[in-house]
């Protein structure tokens, strides 16, 4: 198995950005349609919306893939505009940590809503 010898993972980051972009095209369309449904009254509509397995799956996929695509993209932007290496690493990791945090928190909340509504609680 050949390892790449560059100091930065150039190609794999670009490929991951393109593949997450392809995945996000249908996910973003689903997100817009679901926003139009939920935005009318979130307190009432959100538990009903997340009682369907398809909506729960798409929501978890959308939030995590969007936050990953965004954190990679923001890393590229920081590399363009911030010249100081330690400051750049700080902001890149800040974005990465917040993506993971909100991804896990949203996943847990959506699973909780799905299970609660299936059990009828």
């Amino acid at each position, binding site marked *: 198995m050949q390892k790449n010898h560059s100091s930065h993972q150039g190609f794999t980051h670009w490929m991951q950005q393109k593949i997450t972009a392809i995945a996000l*095209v249908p996910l973003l369309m689903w997100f*817009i349609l679901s926003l*139009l449904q939920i935005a*009318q009254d979130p307190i009432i509509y*959100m538990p009903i919306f997340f009682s369907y397995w398809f909506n729960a799956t798409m929501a978890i996929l959308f*939030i995590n893939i969007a936050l990953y695509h965004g954190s990679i*993209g*923001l890393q590229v932007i920081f590399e363009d505009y911030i010249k100081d290496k330690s400051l750049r690493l700080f902001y890149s990791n800040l974005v990465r940590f917040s993506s993971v945090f909100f991804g896990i928190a949203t996943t847990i909340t959506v699973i909780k*809503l799905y299970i609660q509504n299936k059990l009828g609680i």
Partner: protein
Amino acid sequence: MTKKNLPTSPHLQIYRWSPASIGSIMHRFTGIMLYILTILTAIMIIFYGNISDISSISYIDKRQHCECFLTYLIKFTIYGIVVAFTFSLYYHLLNGIRHLMWDIGKGFEKNIAKKNAILIMLLAMVLAVLTILFIDYFLSFYLKY
């Protein structure tokens, strides 16, 4: 030892703006806005999903209706933020599809790329306006201050 910020030559006032350059910088800018929007969506899902745990706050029931200037300011600010996010959503989606078409190899010719850039800007604005009108027909719940 930190490097000092050396002066750069002026570029924004010198070079001519074109649809392609505006499209490229708008793609980057809407990407940043969309990251903030995704974080806000995650916060909304977490907030409204766990509302039973924090319902002791119950300020949601105590919405007061006040017809003063500050409420109109808040309403216009929220409108502006929602319009900006909707436009960012549609623009980044359409321009992202244009980037993926470039990766396949289509759409490189200068006249086609320029027409696509203008078309995407107009289409994103039209879709944003349509979405806002559709939501506004139902969303008076939020903006009823």
